[in-house]
Protein backbone atom coordinates (compact mmCIF):
# COMPACT_ATOMS: atom_id res chain seq x y z
CA UNK A 1 0.00 0.00 0.00
CA UNK A 2 1.29 3.41 -0.80
CA UNK A 3 -0.06 6.69 0.44
CA UNK A 4 -2.78 8.27 -1.66
CA UNK A 5 -2.73 12.04 -1.36
CA UNK A 6 -5.08 14.67 -2.71
CA UNK A 7 -4.13 18.35 -2.79
CA UNK A 8 -6.78 21.04 -3.31
CA UNK A 9 -5.54 24.19 -4.99
CA UNK A 10 -7.19 27.43 -6.02
CA UNK A 11 -6.41 29.97 -8.68
CA UNK A 12 -6.75 33.39 -7.11
CA UNK A 13 -6.48 37.02 -8.13
CA UNK A 14 -3.16 38.43 -6.98
CA UNK A 15 -4.71 40.56 -4.27
CA UNK A 16 -1.37 41.79 -2.98
CA UNK A 17 -0.36 43.59 -6.13
CA UNK A 18 -3.45 45.54 -6.98
CA UNK A 19 -3.36 48.79 -8.86
CA UNK A 20 -6.81 50.34 -9.00
CA UNK A 21 -10.11 49.20 -7.58
CA UNK A 22 -10.49 45.50 -6.80
CA UNK A 23 -14.23 45.69 -7.36
CA UNK A 24 -16.26 47.30 -10.13
CA UNK A 25 -19.09 49.66 -9.18
CA UNK A 26 -21.60 46.85 -9.86
CA UNK A 27 -20.02 44.79 -7.09
CA UNK A 28 -18.29 42.24 -9.29
CA UNK A 29 -14.59 41.53 -9.20
CA UNK A 30 -12.53 43.77 -11.45
CA UNK A 31 -10.53 40.98 -13.11
CA UNK A 32 -8.75 43.41 -15.40
CA UNK A 33 -6.58 44.78 -12.58
CA UNK A 34 -6.10 41.39 -11.00
CA UNK A 35 -3.66 38.97 -12.58
CA UNK A 36 -4.28 35.39 -11.41
CA UNK A 37 -1.80 33.31 -9.48
CA UNK A 38 -1.51 29.94 -7.71
CA UNK A 39 -2.82 30.55 -4.19
CA UNK A 40 0.45 30.84 -2.22
CA UNK A 41 -0.35 28.46 0.64
CA UNK A 42 -1.61 25.85 -1.84
CA UNK A 43 1.93 25.74 -3.21
CA UNK A 44 3.02 24.94 0.35
CA UNK A 45 0.40 22.18 0.53
CA UNK A 46 1.64 20.69 -2.74
CA UNK A 47 5.25 20.93 -1.59
CA UNK A 48 4.40 19.14 1.65
CA UNK A 49 2.71 16.35 -0.33
CA UNK A 50 5.74 16.05 -2.60
CA UNK A 51 8.11 15.70 0.33
CA UNK A 52 5.86 13.13 2.03
CA UNK A 53 5.84 11.21 -1.22
CA UNK A 54 9.63 11.29 -1.27
CA UNK A 55 9.88 9.78 2.21
CA UNK A 56 6.91 7.41 2.37
CA UNK A 57 6.02 6.85 -1.27
CA UNK A 58 2.64 7.36 -2.81
CA UNK A 59 0.72 9.32 -5.37
CA UNK A 60 -0.52 12.91 -5.57
CA UNK A 61 -3.70 14.05 -7.27
CA UNK A 62 -4.33 17.78 -7.45
CA UNK A 63 -7.85 19.10 -7.85
CA UNK A 64 -9.19 22.58 -8.37
CA UNK A 65 -12.65 23.99 -8.77
CA UNK A 66 -12.84 27.01 -11.01
CA UNK A 67 -13.38 28.36 -14.51
CA UNK A 68 -11.63 26.66 -17.47
CA UNK A 69 -8.74 29.08 -17.03
CA UNK A 70 -7.98 27.48 -13.65
CA UNK A 71 -6.34 24.65 -15.59
CA UNK A 72 -3.24 26.85 -15.35
CA UNK A 73 -2.71 25.94 -11.70
CA UNK A 74 -3.13 22.27 -12.56
CA UNK A 75 -0.48 22.57 -15.23
CA UNK A 76 1.77 24.30 -12.66
CA UNK A 77 1.15 21.37 -10.31
CA UNK A 78 2.21 18.90 -12.97
CA UNK A 79 5.38 20.89 -13.57
CA UNK A 80 6.20 20.63 -9.89
CA UNK A 81 5.58 16.91 -9.59
CA UNK A 82 1.88 16.05 -9.23
CA UNK A 83 0.96 12.66 -10.67
CA UNK A 84 -2.58 13.44 -11.69
CA UNK A 85 -4.78 16.54 -11.87
CA UNK A 86 -8.52 17.12 -12.17
CA UNK A 87 -10.40 20.28 -13.09
CA UNK A 88 -13.89 20.69 -11.65
CA UNK A 89 -15.69 23.25 -13.71
CA UNK A 90 -19.31 24.08 -14.31
CA UNK A 91 -21.32 27.27 -14.46
CA UNK A 92 -23.49 25.80 -11.74
CA UNK A 93 -20.60 26.20 -9.28
CA UNK A 94 -20.54 29.97 -9.74
CA UNK A 95 -21.19 32.15 -6.71
CA UNK A 96 -20.27 29.43 -4.22
CA UNK A 97 -19.52 30.36 -0.64
CA UNK A 98 -17.30 28.11 1.45
CA UNK A 99 -20.13 25.67 2.24
CA UNK A 100 -20.97 25.13 -1.45
CA UNK A 101 -17.27 25.06 -2.40
CA UNK A 102 -16.46 22.39 0.16
CA UNK A 103 -19.50 20.37 -0.92
CA UNK A 104 -18.32 20.29 -4.55
CA UNK A 105 -14.76 19.41 -3.54
CA UNK A 106 -16.02 16.67 -1.24
CA UNK A 107 -18.03 15.12 -4.10
CA UNK A 108 -14.97 15.23 -6.34
CA UNK A 109 -12.74 13.64 -3.69
CA UNK A 110 -15.25 10.84 -3.18
CA UNK A 111 -15.37 10.27 -6.89
CA UNK A 112 -11.58 9.88 -6.92
CA UNK A 113 -12.12 6.96 -4.56
CA UNK A 114 -9.63 5.85 -1.94
CA UNK A 115 -7.43 8.42 -0.26
CA UNK A 116 -5.34 8.66 2.88
CA UNK A 117 -4.37 12.30 3.17
CA UNK A 118 -6.02 15.46 1.85
CA UNK A 119 -3.83 18.58 1.91
CA UNK A 120 -5.25 22.09 1.61
CA UNK A 121 -3.64 25.48 1.91
CA UNK A 122 -4.47 27.18 5.20
CA UNK A 123 -6.17 30.08 3.48
CA UNK A 124 -6.87 31.51 0.03
CA UNK A 125 -5.82 35.13 -0.45
CA UNK A 126 -9.05 36.31 -2.10
CA UNK A 127 -11.91 35.03 0.07
CA UNK A 128 -9.47 34.97 3.02
CA UNK A 129 -11.68 32.69 5.10
CA UNK A 130 -9.60 29.53 5.81
CA UNK A 131 -12.91 27.69 6.04
CA UNK A 132 -12.86 25.37 3.04
CA UNK A 133 -10.35 22.85 4.44
CA UNK A 134 -12.17 22.07 7.72
CA UNK A 135 -15.50 22.00 5.87
CA UNK A 136 -14.24 19.39 3.40
CA UNK A 137 -13.05 17.30 6.35
CA UNK A 138 -16.43 17.52 8.07
CA UNK A 139 -18.25 16.58 4.88
CA UNK A 140 -15.96 13.60 4.29
CA UNK A 141 -16.42 12.67 7.96
CA UNK A 142 -12.67 12.56 8.60
CA UNK A 143 -10.26 14.04 11.12
CA UNK A 144 -8.45 17.31 10.47
CA UNK A 145 -5.29 19.01 11.65
CA UNK A 146 -5.00 22.69 10.80
CA UNK A 147 -1.94 24.91 10.70
CA UNK A 148 0.71 22.34 9.77
CA UNK A 149 4.21 23.78 9.98
CA UNK A 150 6.16 20.55 9.72
CA UNK A 151 5.77 16.82 9.39
CA UNK A 152 7.84 15.18 12.12
CA UNK A 153 7.19 11.59 11.10
CA UNK A 154 5.08 9.96 8.46
CA UNK A 155 4.39 6.30 7.90
CA UNK A 156 1.86 4.39 5.90
CA UNK A 157 -0.45 4.30 8.92
CA UNK A 158 -0.16 7.61 10.70
CA UNK A 159 1.45 11.01 10.63
CA UNK A 160 2.99 13.18 13.36
CA UNK A 161 2.65 16.89 12.80
CA UNK A 162 3.85 20.11 14.37
CA UNK A 163 1.07 22.68 14.14
CA UNK A 164 1.10 26.36 14.93
CA UNK A 165 -1.40 27.53 17.52
CA UNK A 166 -1.93 30.98 18.97
CA UNK A 167 0.42 30.60 21.91
CA UNK A 168 3.02 28.32 20.39
CA UNK A 169 3.00 24.88 18.83
CA UNK A 170 1.45 21.47 19.32
CA UNK A 171 2.85 18.11 18.35
CA UNK A 172 -0.04 15.88 17.34
CA UNK A 173 -0.51 12.51 15.72
CA UNK A 174 -3.38 11.08 13.74
CA UNK A 175 -4.17 8.04 11.68
CA UNK A 176 -5.45 8.31 8.12
CA UNK A 177 -7.75 9.29 6.55
CA UNK A 178 -6.89 12.83 7.54
CA UNK A 179 -7.15 16.34 6.16
CA UNK A 180 -4.43 18.87 6.94
CA UNK A 181 -4.16 22.58 6.18
CA UNK A 182 -0.66 23.85 5.52
CA UNK A 183 0.84 27.18 6.66
CA UNK A 184 3.13 29.33 4.54
CA UNK A 185 5.99 28.77 6.98
CA UNK A 186 5.94 24.99 6.43
CA UNK A 187 8.34 24.89 3.52
CA UNK A 188 9.87 26.58 0.49
CA UNK A 189 7.98 25.31 -2.57
CA UNK A 190 10.27 23.82 -5.21
CA UNK A 191 10.46 25.33 -8.67
CA UNK A 192 8.91 23.72 -11.71
CA UNK A 193 11.13 21.02 -13.21
CA UNK A 194 12.31 21.76 -16.75
CA UNK A 195 11.74 18.17 -17.85
CA UNK A 196 8.20 18.18 -16.58
CA UNK A 197 7.49 21.55 -18.16
CA UNK A 198 8.57 20.06 -21.47
CA UNK A 199 6.39 17.02 -20.92
CA UNK A 200 3.25 18.92 -19.97
CA UNK A 201 3.44 22.13 -21.95
CA UNK A 202 1.14 20.70 -24.58
CA UNK A 203 -1.47 19.31 -22.27
CA UNK A 204 -2.76 22.78 -21.64
CA UNK A 205 -2.50 24.11 -25.14
CA UNK A 206 -4.50 21.22 -26.45
CA UNK A 207 -6.94 21.53 -23.60
CA UNK A 208 -7.82 25.06 -24.53
CA UNK A 209 -8.88 23.92 -27.98
CA UNK A 210 -11.42 21.51 -26.53
CA UNK A 211 -14.95 22.19 -25.39
CA UNK A 212 -15.14 22.48 -21.68
CA UNK A 213 -17.33 19.55 -20.83
CA UNK A 214 -15.56 16.23 -20.14
CA UNK A 215 -12.51 16.50 -22.31
CA UNK A 216 -9.87 13.85 -22.49
CA UNK A 217 -6.68 14.88 -24.15
CA UNK A 218 -3.75 12.96 -25.55
CA UNK A 219 -0.21 14.26 -25.72
CA UNK A 220 0.49 15.09 -29.32
CA UNK A 221 -0.46 11.63 -30.54
CA UNK A 222 2.82 10.36 -29.07
CA UNK A 223 2.79 7.15 -27.07
CA UNK A 224 2.52 8.37 -23.45
CA UNK A 225 4.95 6.70 -21.10
CA UNK A 226 3.25 5.31 -17.97
CA UNK A 227 4.76 7.99 -15.74
CA UNK A 228 3.44 10.80 -17.90
CA UNK A 229 -0.17 11.85 -17.60
CA UNK A 230 -1.84 11.79 -20.98
CA UNK A 231 -4.81 13.99 -20.27
CA UNK A 232 -6.40 16.40 -17.87
CA UNK A 233 -9.70 15.15 -16.61
CA UNK A 234 -12.47 17.65 -16.30
CA UNK A 235 -15.56 17.04 -14.23
CA UNK A 236 -18.81 18.94 -13.90
CA UNK A 237 -21.73 18.86 -11.45
CA UNK A 238 -23.14 15.69 -12.98
CA UNK A 239 -19.91 13.78 -13.30
CA UNK A 240 -19.08 14.25 -9.61
CA UNK A 241 -22.60 13.21 -8.69
CA UNK A 242 -23.36 16.48 -6.92
CA UNK A 243 -26.80 17.84 -6.13
CA UNK A 244 -26.98 21.06 -8.17
CA UNK A 245 -29.06 22.75 -5.47
CA UNK A 246 -26.20 22.42 -2.99
CA UNK A 247 -23.73 23.97 -5.46
CA UNK A 248 -22.98 27.54 -6.39
CA UNK A 249 -25.22 30.39 -5.37
CA UNK A 250 -28.19 28.17 -4.48
CA UNK A 251 -26.10 26.13 -2.06
CA UNK A 252 -24.63 29.17 -0.35
CA UNK A 253 -26.22 30.49 2.84
CA UNK A 254 -23.97 33.55 2.90
CA UNK A 255 -24.73 36.40 0.52
CA UNK A 256 -22.68 39.46 -0.21
CA UNK A 257 -24.92 42.41 0.57
CA UNK A 258 -22.54 45.21 -0.19
CA UNK A 259 -18.97 45.68 -1.27
CA UNK A 260 -16.84 48.74 -0.81
CA UNK A 261 -13.42 49.43 -2.23
CA UNK A 262 -10.94 50.71 0.25
CA UNK A 263 -10.09 54.24 -0.64
CA UNK A 264 -7.38 55.90 1.33
CA UNK A 265 -8.92 58.66 3.35
CA UNK A 266 -6.63 61.62 3.04
CA UNK A 267 -6.66 62.90 6.55
CA UNK A 268 -5.46 66.43 7.16
CA UNK A 269 -1.94 65.38 7.93
CA UNK A 270 -0.03 67.98 9.89
CA UNK A 271 3.43 68.45 8.42
CA UNK A 272 6.02 68.65 11.14
CA UNK A 273 9.12 70.46 9.88
CA UNK A 274 12.23 68.34 10.26
CA UNK A 275 14.06 70.90 12.36
CA UNK A 276 15.00 71.08 16.04
CA UNK A 277 12.34 73.70 16.64
CA UNK A 278 9.68 71.95 14.59
CA UNK A 279 10.15 68.62 16.37
CA UNK A 280 10.42 70.26 19.76
CA UNK A 281 7.09 72.05 19.27
CA UNK A 282 5.51 68.86 18.04
CA UNK A 283 6.61 66.89 21.12
CA UNK A 284 5.23 69.70 23.29
CA UNK A 285 1.89 69.40 21.50
CA UNK A 286 1.72 65.67 22.21
CA UNK A 287 2.47 66.34 25.87
CA UNK A 288 -0.10 69.09 26.13
CA UNK A 289 -2.71 66.72 24.79
CA UNK A 290 -1.60 64.08 27.29
CA UNK A 291 -0.80 61.67 24.46
CA UNK A 292 2.62 61.27 26.03
CA UNK A 293 3.35 62.02 29.63
Amino acid sequence: MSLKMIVTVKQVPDTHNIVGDAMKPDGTVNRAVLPTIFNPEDLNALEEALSIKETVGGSITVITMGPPKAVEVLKESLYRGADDVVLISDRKFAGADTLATSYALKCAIEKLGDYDLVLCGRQAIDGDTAQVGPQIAEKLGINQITGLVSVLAASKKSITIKRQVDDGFEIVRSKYPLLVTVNSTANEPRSPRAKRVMAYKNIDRKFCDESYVESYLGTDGAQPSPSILSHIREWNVESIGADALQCGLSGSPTKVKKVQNIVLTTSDVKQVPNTDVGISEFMRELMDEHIIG
Partner: protein
Amino acid sequence: MDISKSVMVFIEHNGEKIAEVSLELISEATKLAQKLNVSVTAVAMGYNIQSDLEMLGHYGCKKVYYLNDKRLKHFSSIPYAKNVCDVVGRFKPQIVLFGATVMGRDIAPRVASQLKCGLTADCTELKIGEHQMGKKLYKDTLLQIRPAFGGNIIATIVSPESVPSMATVREGVMKLGVADHSKAVKIEKLSCKLPDEDFMTEVLDIIREEKSVDLKGAQIIVSAGMGASDEQALGLVKYLASTLGGVVGGSRPVVDSGVLAKDHQVGQTGVTVRPNLYIACGISGQIQHRAGMSDAKRIVAINSDPNAPIFSIAHYGIVGDVNNIIPKMIKAYKEKV
Protein backbone atom coordinates in the same frame (compact mmCIF):
# COMPACT_ATOMS: atom_id res chain seq x y z
CA MET B 1 -36.68 39.65 26.88
CA ASP B 2 -37.21 36.47 24.91
CA ILE B 3 -35.21 33.99 26.97
CA SER B 4 -35.69 31.16 24.50
CA LYS B 5 -33.45 33.04 22.08
CA SER B 6 -29.87 34.08 22.47
CA VAL B 7 -26.60 35.24 21.05
CA MET B 8 -24.11 32.49 21.86
CA VAL B 9 -20.34 32.74 22.18
CA PHE B 10 -17.90 29.84 21.94
CA ILE B 11 -15.55 30.14 24.90
CA GLU B 12 -11.98 29.24 24.19
CA HIS B 13 -9.92 27.89 27.07
CA ASN B 14 -6.35 26.75 26.60
CA GLY B 15 -6.21 24.67 29.77
CA GLU B 16 -4.94 27.62 31.77
CA LYS B 17 -7.29 30.47 31.13
CA ILE B 18 -10.08 31.85 29.00
CA ALA B 19 -8.88 33.52 25.81
CA GLU B 20 -9.16 37.30 25.79
CA VAL B 21 -11.12 37.20 22.54
CA SER B 22 -13.90 35.18 24.20
CA LEU B 23 -14.46 37.95 26.74
CA GLU B 24 -14.39 40.56 23.97
CA LEU B 25 -17.05 38.55 22.14
CA ILE B 26 -19.23 38.31 25.25
CA SER B 27 -19.04 42.12 25.44
CA GLU B 28 -20.00 42.43 21.76
CA ALA B 29 -22.74 39.80 22.10
CA THR B 30 -24.22 41.84 24.95
CA LYS B 31 -24.70 44.77 22.58
CA LEU B 32 -26.22 42.63 19.83
CA ALA B 33 -28.49 40.85 22.30
CA GLN B 34 -29.76 44.15 23.62
CA LYS B 35 -30.86 45.19 20.13
CA LEU B 36 -32.54 41.84 19.56
CA ASN B 37 -33.98 41.79 23.06
CA VAL B 38 -32.54 38.34 23.75
CA SER B 39 -29.94 37.07 26.20
CA VAL B 40 -26.27 36.16 25.95
CA THR B 41 -25.27 32.54 26.36
CA ALA B 42 -22.00 30.68 25.94
CA VAL B 43 -20.68 27.20 25.33
CA ALA B 44 -17.46 26.09 27.01
CA MET B 45 -15.63 22.81 27.32
CA GLY B 46 -12.52 21.48 28.97
CA TYR B 47 -11.51 19.74 32.16
CA ASN B 48 -12.04 21.37 35.55
CA ILE B 49 -12.33 24.90 34.23
CA GLN B 50 -15.58 25.77 35.99
CA SER B 51 -14.08 28.39 38.31
CA ASP B 52 -12.74 30.32 35.32
CA LEU B 53 -16.21 30.52 33.83
CA GLU B 54 -17.57 32.74 36.61
CA MET B 55 -16.04 35.82 35.03
CA LEU B 56 -18.20 35.43 31.91
CA GLY B 57 -21.05 36.84 33.98
CA HIS B 58 -19.13 40.02 34.69
CA TYR B 59 -19.17 40.84 31.00
CA GLY B 60 -22.87 40.15 30.49
CA CYS B 61 -23.21 36.41 29.85
CA LYS B 62 -26.36 34.99 31.45
CA LYS B 63 -25.84 31.30 31.01
CA VAL B 64 -22.97 29.05 30.00
CA TYR B 65 -23.39 25.47 28.83
CA TYR B 66 -20.38 23.67 30.19
CA LEU B 67 -19.05 20.27 29.15
CA ASN B 68 -16.57 18.90 31.64
CA ASP B 69 -14.66 15.83 30.52
CA LYS B 70 -11.07 14.70 30.95
CA ARG B 71 -10.94 13.92 27.25
CA LEU B 72 -11.72 17.57 26.46
CA LYS B 73 -8.68 18.85 28.31
CA HIS B 74 -6.83 19.37 25.05
CA PHE B 75 -8.38 20.73 21.93
CA SER B 76 -9.39 18.18 19.33
CA SER B 77 -11.36 19.17 16.23
CA ILE B 78 -14.04 16.53 15.95
CA PRO B 79 -15.14 16.35 19.61
CA TYR B 80 -15.10 20.12 20.06
CA ALA B 81 -17.06 20.72 16.86
CA LYS B 82 -19.58 17.97 17.62
CA ASN B 83 -20.18 19.29 21.11
CA VAL B 84 -20.81 22.80 19.82
CA CYS B 85 -23.21 21.41 17.19
CA ASP B 86 -25.04 19.52 19.89
CA VAL B 87 -25.43 22.59 22.14
CA VAL B 88 -26.47 24.81 19.22
CA GLY B 89 -28.96 22.18 18.08
CA ARG B 90 -30.50 21.92 21.54
CA PHE B 91 -30.61 25.55 22.59
CA LYS B 92 -31.07 27.21 19.20
CA PRO B 93 -29.25 30.53 19.46
CA GLN B 94 -29.90 33.04 16.67
CA ILE B 95 -26.27 34.00 16.38
CA VAL B 96 -23.09 32.13 17.27
CA LEU B 97 -19.74 33.91 17.55
CA PHE B 98 -16.26 32.37 17.60
CA GLY B 99 -12.85 33.98 18.03
CA ALA B 100 -10.92 33.96 14.75
CA THR B 101 -8.10 32.19 16.56
CA VAL B 102 -6.45 29.00 15.42
CA MET B 103 -8.98 27.04 17.50
CA GLY B 104 -11.98 29.09 16.41
CA ARG B 105 -11.04 28.88 12.77
CA ASP B 106 -10.55 25.15 13.15
CA ILE B 107 -13.95 24.27 14.58
CA ALA B 108 -16.31 27.04 13.40
CA PRO B 109 -16.19 25.87 9.75
CA ARG B 110 -16.80 22.28 10.85
CA VAL B 111 -19.79 23.35 12.92
CA ALA B 112 -21.15 25.45 10.04
CA SER B 113 -20.69 22.56 7.65
CA GLN B 114 -22.47 20.09 9.90
CA LEU B 115 -25.37 22.46 10.60
CA LYS B 116 -25.37 23.78 6.99
CA CYS B 117 -25.17 27.36 8.25
CA GLY B 118 -23.55 30.45 6.87
CA LEU B 119 -20.24 31.42 8.47
CA THR B 120 -18.55 34.76 7.92
CA ALA B 121 -14.84 34.94 8.59
CA ASP B 122 -12.84 37.62 10.37
CA CYS B 123 -15.57 40.19 10.89
CA THR B 124 -14.44 43.64 11.93
CA GLU B 125 -17.91 44.92 12.71
CA LEU B 126 -21.25 43.31 13.54
CA LYS B 127 -24.60 45.05 13.29
CA ILE B 128 -28.24 44.16 13.43
CA GLY B 129 -30.21 45.30 10.41
CA GLU B 130 -32.51 44.37 7.58
CA HIS B 131 -31.93 42.55 4.34
CA GLN B 132 -34.20 42.50 1.33
CA MET B 133 -33.98 39.38 -0.81
CA GLY B 134 -36.44 39.22 -3.68
CA LYS B 135 -39.81 40.00 -2.16
CA LYS B 136 -38.85 38.96 1.30
CA LEU B 137 -37.62 41.38 3.94
CA TYR B 138 -35.51 39.82 6.66
CA LYS B 139 -35.58 41.83 9.86
CA ASP B 140 -33.17 41.54 12.76
CA THR B 141 -30.52 40.03 10.55
CA LEU B 142 -26.85 39.96 11.45
CA LEU B 143 -24.87 42.24 9.15
CA GLN B 144 -21.32 40.95 9.10
CA ILE B 145 -18.71 43.37 7.90
CA ARG B 146 -15.33 42.03 6.89
CA PRO B 147 -12.31 42.88 4.81
CA ALA B 148 -11.43 40.49 1.97
CA PHE B 149 -9.25 40.43 -1.11
CA GLY B 150 -6.17 41.07 0.95
CA GLY B 151 -7.76 44.06 2.65
CA ASN B 152 -8.59 45.83 -0.62
CA ILE B 153 -12.34 45.63 -0.09
CA ILE B 154 -14.81 45.66 2.75
CA ALA B 155 -17.80 43.39 2.27
CA THR B 156 -21.07 43.24 4.18
CA ILE B 157 -22.18 39.63 4.34
CA VAL B 158 -25.56 38.30 5.46
CA SER B 159 -26.90 34.78 5.92
CA PRO B 160 -30.60 35.68 6.26
CA GLU B 161 -31.96 32.15 5.94
CA SER B 162 -29.35 30.49 8.05
CA VAL B 163 -30.31 29.69 11.63
CA PRO B 164 -28.10 30.50 13.36
CA SER B 165 -25.89 33.07 11.61
CA MET B 166 -22.32 32.41 12.56
CA ALA B 167 -19.24 34.61 12.47
CA THR B 168 -15.64 34.65 13.58
CA VAL B 169 -13.91 37.77 14.93
CA ARG B 170 -10.21 38.34 15.53
CA GLU B 171 -8.77 39.11 18.91
CA GLY B 172 -8.55 42.81 19.69
CA VAL B 173 -11.22 43.84 17.16
CA MET B 174 -14.15 44.13 19.57
CA LYS B 175 -13.78 46.20 22.71
CA LEU B 176 -13.74 44.50 26.06
CA GLY B 177 -16.55 45.81 28.23
CA VAL B 178 -16.13 46.96 31.80
CA ALA B 179 -16.37 44.04 34.21
CA ASP B 180 -19.30 44.26 36.61
CA HIS B 181 -18.53 41.91 39.48
CA SER B 182 -22.07 42.01 40.78
CA LYS B 183 -23.34 40.13 37.75
CA ALA B 184 -23.24 36.35 37.81
CA VAL B 185 -23.54 33.68 35.20
CA LYS B 186 -25.55 30.48 35.50
CA ILE B 187 -23.42 27.45 34.73
CA GLU B 188 -25.42 24.61 33.23
CA LYS B 189 -23.46 21.40 33.12
CA LEU B 190 -23.89 19.04 30.22
CA SER B 191 -22.17 15.74 29.72
CA CYS B 192 -20.02 14.87 26.75
CA LYS B 193 -21.51 11.69 25.34
CA LEU B 194 -19.06 11.27 22.50
CA PRO B 195 -17.45 7.86 22.01
CA ASP B 196 -13.66 7.57 22.37
CA GLU B 197 -13.39 6.94 18.64
CA ASP B 198 -14.21 10.60 18.03
CA PHE B 199 -10.97 11.63 19.71
CA MET B 200 -8.76 11.01 16.73
CA THR B 201 -5.94 13.44 17.37
CA GLU B 202 -3.33 12.43 19.92
CA VAL B 203 -1.63 15.40 21.54
CA LEU B 204 1.99 14.41 22.11
CA ASP B 205 3.41 17.72 23.23
CA ILE B 206 2.49 21.34 23.75
CA ILE B 207 5.11 24.03 23.27
CA ARG B 208 4.02 27.34 24.76
CA GLU B 209 5.81 30.44 23.69
CA GLU B 210 5.50 33.38 25.99
CA LYS B 211 4.70 36.59 24.22
CA SER B 212 7.67 38.90 24.36
CA VAL B 213 5.50 42.00 24.03
CA ASP B 214 1.90 42.94 24.66
CA LEU B 215 1.08 45.17 21.70
CA LYS B 216 -2.65 44.97 22.19
CA GLY B 217 -2.61 46.48 25.62
CA ALA B 218 -0.05 49.17 24.83
CA GLN B 219 -0.97 52.86 24.76
CA ILE B 220 2.16 53.93 22.93
CA ILE B 221 3.71 51.92 20.10
CA VAL B 222 6.82 52.87 18.15
CA SER B 223 7.10 50.66 15.08
CA ALA B 224 10.03 49.92 12.83
CA GLY B 225 9.69 49.28 9.12
CA MET B 226 12.30 48.35 6.57
CA GLY B 227 13.44 51.96 6.61
CA ALA B 228 14.44 51.53 10.27
CA SER B 229 15.54 47.93 10.44
CA ASP B 230 19.30 48.20 10.55
CA GLU B 231 21.03 47.99 13.90
CA GLN B 232 21.42 51.71 14.42
CA ALA B 233 17.90 52.75 13.43
CA LEU B 234 16.25 49.85 15.27
CA GLY B 235 18.25 50.80 18.32
CA LEU B 236 16.84 54.32 18.07
CA VAL B 237 13.29 52.99 17.66
CA LYS B 238 13.71 50.90 20.81
CA TYR B 239 15.20 53.81 22.67
CA LEU B 240 12.35 56.13 21.67
CA ALA B 241 9.80 53.51 22.76
CA SER B 242 11.39 53.06 26.18
CA THR B 243 11.81 56.81 26.63
CA LEU B 244 8.11 57.41 25.98
CA GLY B 245 7.03 54.40 28.05
CA GLY B 246 5.83 52.50 25.02
CA VAL B 247 6.58 49.23 23.29
CA VAL B 248 8.17 48.30 19.99
CA GLY B 249 6.17 47.09 16.98
CA GLY B 250 7.26 46.24 13.48
CA SER B 251 6.18 45.64 9.92
CA ARG B 252 6.14 42.13 8.56
CA PRO B 253 9.37 42.22 6.55
CA VAL B 254 11.20 43.43 9.65
CA VAL B 255 9.80 40.51 11.64
CA ASP B 256 10.52 38.12 8.77
CA SER B 257 14.12 39.30 8.71
CA GLY B 258 14.42 38.05 12.27
CA VAL B 259 15.39 41.24 14.11
CA LEU B 260 12.03 41.38 15.93
CA ALA B 261 10.01 38.42 17.25
CA LYS B 262 6.73 37.50 15.58
CA ASP B 263 4.51 38.99 18.30
CA HIS B 264 5.87 42.44 17.47
CA GLN B 265 4.21 42.34 14.06
CA VAL B 266 1.45 44.84 13.44
CA GLY B 267 -0.98 44.27 10.60
CA GLN B 268 -3.33 41.94 8.87
CA THR B 269 -1.30 38.84 9.67
CA GLY B 270 0.00 40.25 12.91
CA VAL B 271 -1.71 42.09 15.75
CA THR B 272 -4.45 44.71 15.41
CA VAL B 273 -3.61 47.62 17.69
CA ARG B 274 -5.48 50.68 18.94
CA PRO B 275 -2.99 52.69 20.96
CA ASN B 276 -3.22 56.37 21.80
CA LEU B 277 -0.04 56.98 19.85
CA TYR B 278 1.45 55.04 16.96
CA ILE B 279 4.79 56.20 15.57
CA ALA B 280 5.59 54.57 12.23
CA CYS B 281 9.31 54.79 11.53
CA GLY B 282 10.40 53.93 7.99
CA ILE B 283 7.15 52.13 7.21
CA SER B 284 5.72 52.61 3.73
CA GLY B 285 2.14 51.98 4.87
CA GLN B 286 0.96 49.12 2.67
CA ILE B 287 -2.65 48.04 3.10
CA GLN B 288 -1.72 44.94 5.12
CA HIS B 289 0.13 47.07 7.63
CA ARG B 290 -2.53 49.76 7.81
CA ALA B 291 -5.15 47.08 8.47
CA GLY B 292 -3.57 46.59 11.89
CA MET B 293 -3.01 50.17 13.02
CA SER B 294 -5.29 52.64 11.24
CA ASP B 295 -7.52 52.91 14.32
CA ALA B 296 -4.77 54.38 16.47
CA LYS B 297 -5.86 57.69 17.99
CA ARG B 298 -2.74 59.54 16.83
CA ILE B 299 -0.55 58.33 14.01
CA VAL B 300 2.87 59.86 13.48
CA ALA B 301 4.71 58.89 10.30
CA ILE B 302 8.42 59.35 9.78
CA ASN B 303 9.54 58.56 6.26
CA SER B 304 12.16 59.84 3.83
CA ASP B 305 9.72 59.53 0.93
CA PRO B 306 7.17 62.39 1.01
CA ASN B 307 4.85 60.28 -1.17
CA ALA B 308 4.84 57.21 1.07
CA PRO B 309 1.24 55.96 1.49
CA ILE B 310 1.59 56.03 5.27
CA PHE B 311 1.26 59.83 5.16
CA SER B 312 -2.29 59.52 3.85
CA ILE B 313 -3.50 58.04 7.14
CA ALA B 314 -1.11 59.86 9.47
CA HIS B 315 -2.13 62.76 11.68
CA TYR B 316 1.43 64.06 11.80
CA GLY B 317 4.03 63.59 9.13
CA ILE B 318 7.76 64.17 9.36
CA VAL B 319 9.67 63.81 6.12
CA GLY B 320 13.27 62.77 6.59
CA ASP B 321 15.73 60.16 7.80
CA VAL B 322 14.77 58.25 10.97
CA ASN B 323 18.39 58.33 12.09
CA ASN B 324 18.21 62.05 12.20
CA ILE B 325 14.64 62.62 13.40
CA ILE B 326 14.37 60.16 16.29
CA PRO B 327 17.32 61.65 18.23
CA LYS B 328 15.66 65.06 17.90
CA MET B 329 12.44 63.67 19.31
CA ILE B 330 14.20 62.04 22.24
CA LYS B 331 16.13 65.20 22.97
CA ALA B 332 13.02 67.39 22.81
CA TYR B 333 11.09 65.03 25.09
CA LYS B 334 13.85 64.84 27.68
CA GLU B 335 14.18 68.61 27.79
CA LYS B 336 10.49 69.05 28.50
CA VAL B 337 10.07 66.49 31.28
